């Protein structure tokens, strides 16, 4: 499948943290054909397996969390309005006048209410309307709405994708399904014979909401020899500190951190240089803000490298990514799973 279409297809799916299984069938029919096996587990992870065909093959895990930020319904009001609470780190500043999708017994559309300037009582007010006071307008009467929606129904942003100049794209949930798309894109194009080991692509759940995510259970079941965690990384934009951001349109980022494996990280940097894959280093001394520490501590411990895809406007419905960066990431995944040298160094 063409890369942009793979990205938008995966990112359009509903996978609000805690509801990842909602899209299991869709994932299966979309990309199952590229893998030898697809399965889900008791937590909400989806595991895609690609085998190399060799006996006693080593096991590589690629982790890309698959959940997304979103909302849950907390109350149904007269006139067909809904109150919601946040799932994950929702940016309050982007919510008003936004289209949302409500995943009830039917999937329906809603609009987050805003107050027009004409009716704003305090025009100099500085505070944003709090989430608990925002309403979603569904266009239904309360009685009809109660047949479709209940407290706890997940709500996501509308999947609208726009191509910008410079081969950029904007839309929802590139965090982190664009990384999943990059990995699937790479794995779908590799001949079995070229794989250095069996590859377990973990579309893990709960990253946006729980400190350890679903990755620990997913990795525990597989016991990988070594692993790569891929997650989006904050790209530099105006008014952000240089040392806390990564360059956009400069390839992938590689985290240097106490929670990653130093030898594996160096081997991956070496691989990038050999294969001319663009990357920048980012110092993340004690925390990567990703699944890496949880995966690293699973079972007997898993040597892990932490890779980032630069992303602007993270946690909005118009996250901006650079297709060039996704292609570099995809190339790195390909070289990583085909590297005999890395397998020799890390297979137990």
């Amino acid at each position, binding site marked *: 499948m063409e890369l942009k279409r793979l990205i938008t297809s995966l990112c359009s799916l509903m996978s609000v943290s805690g509801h990842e299984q909602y899209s299991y069938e869709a994932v299966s029919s979309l990309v199952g054909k590229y893998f030898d096996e697809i399965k889900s587990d008791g937590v909400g992870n989806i595991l895609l397996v690609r085998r190399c065909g060799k006996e006693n093959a080593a096991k590589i895990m690629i982790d890309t969390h698959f959940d997304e930020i979103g909302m849950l319904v907390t109350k149904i009001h007269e006139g067909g309005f809904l109150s919601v609470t946040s799932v994950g780190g929702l940016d309050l500043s982007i919510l008003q006048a936004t289209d949302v999708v409500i995943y009830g017994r039917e999937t329906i559309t809603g609009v987050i209410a805003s107050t027009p300037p004409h009716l704003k009582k305090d025009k100099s007010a500085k505070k*944003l309307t709090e989430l608990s006071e925002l309403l979603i307008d569904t266009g239904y009467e309360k009685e009809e709405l109660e047949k479709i929606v209940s407290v706890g129904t997940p709500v996501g942003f509308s999947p609208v994708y726009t191509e910008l100049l410079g081969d*950029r794209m904007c839309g929802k949930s590139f965090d982190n399904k664009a990384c999943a798309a990059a990995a699937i894109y790479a794995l779908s194009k590799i001949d079995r014979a070229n794989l250095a080991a069996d590859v377990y692509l973990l579309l893990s759940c709960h990253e946006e909401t729980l400190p350890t995510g679903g990755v620990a259970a997913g990795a525990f079941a597989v016991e990988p020899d070594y692993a790569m965690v891929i997650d989006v990384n904050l790209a530099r934009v105006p008014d952000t500190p240089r040392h806390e951001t990564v360059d956009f349109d400069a390839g992938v980022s590689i985290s240097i951190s106490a929670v990653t494996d130093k030898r594996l990280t160096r081997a991956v940097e070496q691989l990038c240089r050999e294969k001319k894959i663009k990357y920048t280093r980012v110092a993340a001394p004690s925390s990567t803000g990703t699944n890496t520490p949880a995966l690293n501590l699973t079972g007997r411990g898993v040597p892990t490298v932490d890779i980032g895809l630069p992303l602007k*406007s993270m946690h909005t419905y118009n996250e901006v990514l650079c297709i060039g960066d996704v292609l570099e990431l995809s190339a790195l995944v390909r070289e990583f799973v085909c590297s005999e040298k890395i397998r020799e160094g890390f297979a137990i």
Partner: protein
Amino acid sequence: MTKYTDIELLRQLCLLFGPSGCEDNVADFIREQISDTCDEIYTDRLGSLIAYIGSGKSDRQRLMISAHMDEVGFMINEICDDGYLKFETLGGIDPSVLCGKNVTLGDEVNKIKGVIASKAIHHKKRDERLNITPVSDMYIDIGLSSREDVLKYLDIGAYGTFDSEFIRFGKDGRKIKSKALDDRLGCAVMIEAMRALYPERDSLPMDIYFCFTVREEIGISGAQVAANTIKPDFAIVLETTAVADIAGVADSAKVAIQGEGGAISLMDRSTIYDRELVEFALDVAKKNSVKAQIKKYVSGGNDASHIHKSGVGVRTLALSAPTRYLHSPACVVDAEDYYSILSLVDAMLREWKFAD
């Protein structure tokens, strides 16, 4: 007319690019739509499109019907070295609805896509997370990373509008969500009225000037000049009005209720409307079993402000679609109200009783 399906004209109008001062695309589209349903069309010196149905006899009464073509939008006022664009709003837009939104930038010929952004939540301090981001802290990202590259596509002064899908939602798709319903809805009503009336123009007791005006949203109203040149005896302004008929708002503050028909103004911040015309509109609605309601709150203002005070004074009526979330990329109207307004305007023109 099939209910809820005959919205295509409104959809096409809403999706056009027409911020205040750059209404050309809207005017061109409307001219095409109405070329066979009027006796004459011209564009006045400010850019308003004026179409005329009538006898051409100078002793007949003149009725001006007006809706504005422009929508709230943006103007680019700085191109940064790293390719980001700074902007100002064109017309009244609350900064709370800007962050994260898709926009179209350019002019009547060239357009590109962009997105309004500020730094990610991860880089916002606590108070920045809770406060409205000022427009000065936002920027537009069009995908380019140098000023030089941006200048190949646009320059300071480029116009912008929201880029938002036109969708139907709610029970049976009863609600319409779009940008620019203010006031392409009024434009759509005029076009439909012209189509219905033109075949029967000989029976009209007055001459009608349909005015698709420019620059309402910035208050430097093209309608004023249109009224100055037409010198109408009467005017009907077709508009949208902000309503707050949502959960938690006291009935007295709701302005009007969606689904109860067009809202007829008695008074707003800049106009006191002609009482006889108000009574006439309400009578016609009642007689024809068309829903209509009185706008119950003195707020806002529109082109009537300029029209009713033009020349020797013009007796003026305003009929507005109750619209939620006005001046945002997600304005919402009830399709039933659109149909009620279409029916009421058609009936009022057929039953016009003020001509000699």
